[in-house]
């Protein structure tokens, strides 16, 4: 199986851009006035949150398309996007408390953005567990589609929570004496976000390829079972 040229190009671009993003985040970006060095977590915490949103958004979109047209490939793409959403949401939930401990003095608080992000992560884990526990592929796709759409409903709550409930979570970062995000900080964030986007694209393509391989294994297992039923041989067994 030959991975596509696009996949290789994306992998190359991600490999080149990640060190650049890290150099910008750790060396070139100025130190934030109040939080100090720990603010640099921002350069991979925020892009991870963006990728988590991208994963959930894509999964919900593919789920709606699947429910409309019932195409297997779209379901495979929805599952891949949800899994990546879960991966990046995990990074957000790990790096967030590591930032919060020295700044807020606690690892976790009942702040709305934190809680709603945790809810999103639980929905995504639920999505993956639901698919595992479904009786067949069709049921897994239907249950997954509903879970992905529910997950997407949480996204505007997370995004707007700081405004709606005036939470503790930072909304705008300020360097000492400044009035907003420093231009170099903004550039570092942009490059970091691009690097994460490339990484997301590479992982998404790899995960879709894996999903298609699962499909092939299932259809081959069915063929073996049919052959065994007619010839009286041993069944292929389940593919999980």
């Amino acid at each position, binding site marked *: *199986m*030959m*991975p596509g040229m696009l*996949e*290789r190009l994306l*992998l190359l671009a991600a*490999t080149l851009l*990640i*060190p650049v993003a*890290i*150099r910008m*985040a*750790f*060396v070139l970006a*100025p*130190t934030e*006035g109040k*939080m*100090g*060095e*720990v603010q*640099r*977590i921002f350069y*991979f*915490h925020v892009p*991870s949150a963006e990728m988590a949103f991208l994963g959930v958004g894509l999964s919900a979109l593919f789920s709606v398309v699947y429910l409309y047209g019932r195409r297997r490939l779209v379901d495979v793409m929805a599952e891949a996007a949800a899994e990546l959403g879960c*991966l990046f949401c*995990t*990074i957000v939930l*790990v*790096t967030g408390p*590591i*930032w919060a*401990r*020295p700044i807020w003095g606690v690892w976790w608080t009942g702040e709305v953005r934190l809680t709603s992000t945790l809810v999103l992560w639980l929905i995504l884990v639920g999505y993956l567990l639901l698919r595992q526990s479904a009786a067949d592929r069709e049921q897994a796709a239907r249950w997954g589609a509903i879970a992905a759409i529910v997950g997407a409903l949480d996204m505007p709550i997370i995004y707007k929570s700081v405004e709606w409930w005036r939470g503790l979570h930072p909304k705008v970062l300020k360097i*000492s004496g400044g009035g907003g995000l420093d231009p170099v900080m903004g550039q570092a964030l942009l490059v970091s976000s691009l690097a994460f986007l490339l*990484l997301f694209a*590479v*992982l998404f393509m*790899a*995960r879709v*390829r*894996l999903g298609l*391989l*699962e499909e*092939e*294994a299932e259809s*081959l*297992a069915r*063929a*073996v079972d049919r*052959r065994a039923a007619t010839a009286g041989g041993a069944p*292929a067994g389940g*593919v999980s």
Partner: protein
Amino acid sequence: MTLVDLAGQAAGLLTGTGEFLAGLCGAGIQAAGAGAATAFEAAVQPDAVARRLRFLSWAYTAVWLILAAYLLLLSMRQRRLERLVRQLRERVSPPGPTFRP
């Protein structure tokens, strides 16, 4: 080139990048520490700066560990499925004498 190879390459790249980045991170943290010394020395205790750098390195390590674990998981699943597909293909159409007209 299979996806397993690709994942292996990516893991290798990530490992290599991780090693490079560990050095870079160390240098970055030192440079950042130097910056911190000018910006915060008056306001923040040196212990607090070191503590914050420690939290930063934890977060950074956690990101790479999570990504590496996911890549490893993907690679293992890919390998297992490829083996299964190969076995099933053999059962569906077992290798036999080919007909040559």
